[in-house]
C-alpha cells in the first residue's frame, strides 16, 4: 500500500497536471494555443497511478489525449505548454503540438493521433525488451473508442501469442468524440470484456482512484515482468472538458456529468489522504506548489522564442535533414 508521503506526492502530480491542462485550456481560448487540444482533466489518476507502478525505464505510448502521460513521465509543464504555444523550446520543437507530446529521454515514446495505432508499437517495444533481456515492460494507454479498431485486435493477439511484457490500459471515459461508446460497442465493458478473446486477464478498475490504479498496474506489471504475458486493464473514468478545443460536451446528460464531477480523482485522493491522517493543509500546500509551478511555466513559455522557420526542413532523416533527391 501507498504510504502517506507517497500518496501526497501522487496527489501533487495530479494537481500539477490538472493545472497545466487548465492553463492549456485558457491559453487555447485566448488564442495563444493553436490547432487543437484534447484535455485529460478528470483522468489524471490513471497516468499518475500507473506511472507510480512502473519502472522509470518502462516504455509508455499514449494518444492525442496524452498531456497527463507526458507530465507523469517527466515532461515539465513548461516544455509541454511551450509546445502547445508553438515555441522553439517545446517538447517537440513545436513540430508536434498537443497531440504528439513525446519525452523519449524518459521512454515516454510518444502520443499518437490515429486511434489504436500505438498498440502494436507497444507490442514491438515489449518484444524488443525481451530480446534485449532488460526486464522492461511496455504500456499502451488508449481510449474506449480504440477497442473497436482493427489494430487493437491484432496487437492483443500478437502480444498474447508471444506472452510479451505489455500492458494495455484502456481509459474508458464513456465517450468517443461525441458519441457514447455504449452506442457502438457490442459488449458492456469495451476492453475488459474482450480480454478472453485473447486468453489474457481483463480487469476493471476505478480509474479515478490513484491508489487502486497503482495497485492494479503494479500487479499486472509484475506479472508481465515475470514472463506471464500481457493483460488488459480497463480504467473507468470521465473527462471534465469536452472532446477537444472548445467542445462544450452538451451531448452528455447533466446528471451524468454531475455524478462524475463528484468523483473527481483529486477529491478521491484527498479523501484517502485524510484517512491516512494527513492534514488538509498538506494537500492545499501541494496545490499551491503545483499552481505556482504552472504559473511560472506559462510565463516562461510565453516568453520563449518562436521556432526558426528553417526548422521546418529538418528532422525527417536521421542525418537531421530532409533531402529526398540528389
Amino acid at each position: 500500500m501507498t504510504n502517506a508521503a507517497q500518496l501526497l506526492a501522487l496527489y501533487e502530480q495530479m494537481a500539477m497536471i490538472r493545472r497545466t491542462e487548465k492553463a492549456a485550456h485558457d491559453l487555447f481560448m485566448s488564442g495563444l494555443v493553436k490547432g487543437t487540444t484534447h484535455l485529460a482533466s478528470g483522468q489524471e489518476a490513471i497516468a499518475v497511478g500507473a506511472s507510480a507502478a512502473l519502472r522509470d525505464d518502462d516504455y509508455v505510448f499514449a494518444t492525442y489525449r496524452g498531456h497527463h502521460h507526458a507530465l507523469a513521465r517527466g515532461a515539465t509543464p513548461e516544455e509541454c505548454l511551450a509546445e502547445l504555444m508553438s515555441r522553439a523550446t517545446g517538447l517537440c520543437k513545436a513540430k508536434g503540438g498537443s497531440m504528439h507530446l513525446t519525452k523519449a529521454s524518459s521512454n515516454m515514446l510518444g502520443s499518437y493521433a490515429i486511434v489504436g495505432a500505438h498498440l502494436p508499437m507497444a507490442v514491438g517495444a515489449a518484444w524488443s525488451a525481451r530480446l534485449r533481456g532488460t526486464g522492461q515492460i511496455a504500456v499502451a494507454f488508449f481510449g474506449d473508442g480504440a477497442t473497436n479498431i482493427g489494430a487493437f485486435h491484432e496487437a492483443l493477439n500478437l502480444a498474447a501469442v508471444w506472452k510479451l511484457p505489455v500492458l494495455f490500459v484502456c481509459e474508458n471515459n464513456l465517450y468517443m468524440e461525441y458519441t457514447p461508446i455504449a452506442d457502438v460497442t457490442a459488449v458492456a465493458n469495451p476492453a475488459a470484456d474482450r480480454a478472453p478473446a485473447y486468453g489474457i486477464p481483463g480487469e476493471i478498475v476505478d480509474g479515478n482512484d490513484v491508489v487502486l490504479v497503482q495497485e492494479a498496474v503494479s500487479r499486472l506489471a509484475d506479472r508481465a515482468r515475470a514472463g506471464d504475458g500481457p493483460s488488459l486493464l480497463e480504467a473507468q473514468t470521465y473527462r471534465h472538458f469536452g472532446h477537444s478545443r472548445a467542445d462544450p460536451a452538451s451531448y452528455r446528460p447533466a446528471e451524468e456529468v454531475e455524478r462524475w464531477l463528484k468523483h473527481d480523482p483529486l477529491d478521491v485522493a484527498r479523501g484517502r489522504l485524510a484517512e491516512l491522517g494527513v492534514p488538509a493543509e498538506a494537500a492545499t500546500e501541494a496545490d499551491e506548489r503545483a499552481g505556482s509551478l504552472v504559473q511560472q511555466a506559462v510565463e516562461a513559455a510565453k516568453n520563449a522564442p518562436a521556432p526558426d522557420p528553417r526548422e521546418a526542413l529538418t528532422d525527417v532523416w536521421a542525418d537531421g535533414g530532409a533531402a529526398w533527391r540528389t
Partner: protein
Amino acid sequence: MADVITYREAVAEGIAREMRRDPAVVCLGEDIGAAGGVFKTTVGLHKEFGPERVWDTPISEQAIVGAAMGAAMTGMRPIAEIMFSDFLACCWDYLANEIPKVRYMTGGQVTVPLVVRTANGGGLGFGAQHSQATENWAFTVPGLKIAAPATPADVIGMMAAAVRSDDPVVFFEHKGLLATKGVPPPPDHVVELGRAAVVREGADVTLVALASMVPVALTAAERLAEEHIDAEVIDLRCLVPLDTRTVLGSLAKTSRLVTVEENPYQGGWGATLVSVVADEGFGLLDAPVRRVAAACVPLPFADALEEQVIPTVDKVEASVRDLTSY
C-alpha cells in the same frame, strides 16, 4: 434558401438534396449523426432522415468503408465519411485493392456506386497526422474517381454527380475552405465530374490548382496582374477524370505552366499532369514547367513552420515571376 452558403453547409445541403431525391442514398461514419459531424458538415441529416439512413459508427474505418462497399454492391448508394483524409490510411485496402478493382476483376459483374467523403488538407495547425492533402494517394490507384471542390456551389454540384455516379468517388472536402462562402446553386445543380473550370482567363501563364490552392492561385494571379503578368487559373476540380484537354488548350495560349499543389512534391498529382504536358504538349511550351508543391516533409504543428511547407501566395507569385522572365 439563403443568399449565401458556406462550404461547410454546402456539404450537408448537397447530401440532403440527394437523400431526398433517392431513398437508396444512406450515410455512415463516426459522429455524423446526432452530433452533425466533427466538422458540422452533416448537420441536420440525422434529424431529417433518421438513424437508419444516417448511421453513427464505431471507430472502425475498415468496417465503415467495407460496409459501404457491400451496401453499394447490393442496391444502395452509400456515402461513407472518413473523418480526416489521413485516416484513409486505416482503410486503404478498400480504396486501393477492393473498391476500384472489383468491377474489373469480376469482368464487369459488380458495380460499386459509393462516395467516400473526407476532410482533407492542412493550414490549421493540426499536425502531421491530421493535415495531409491525400488526394494524390488515391490518384495512384486506377478505378477511383477523385473529386475536390473549391467552392460551395461546386460542393453541391459535384456531390450530386458523385452520388449519382455508378463509379466509386472519393470526395475531398478541404478543411481550410469550410468557412468560405458562396452563392447557393439552383435545385438539381450537377457539375459533371472531370470538367475543369477556367476560373480566371489570362494569356501569359497557366496556373493549375485544386481545392484550397485555387484561392491561393487566384490571389497570386491578382497580384501578378499588378506587374502586368496575366495568369490564367484553372481549377481542376477532379483528378480522375483528369481534364488534360482544358489544360493543354490553355497552354496553347500561354505556353507556360505552373501547378499549385498542396501535396508534397514527390508523388504529387501535378507530376502526372506535367508528364502529360511534357509529352503531348511539348511543342506548346516556351519555358520550363514548374510545380509549386509542399516540401517533402510531414506537416509541422506550428503555424510559422506549416507555412514554410505548404504553398503560399508568395511562393506561387515568385515562381510565376521567375518563369515568365525565362
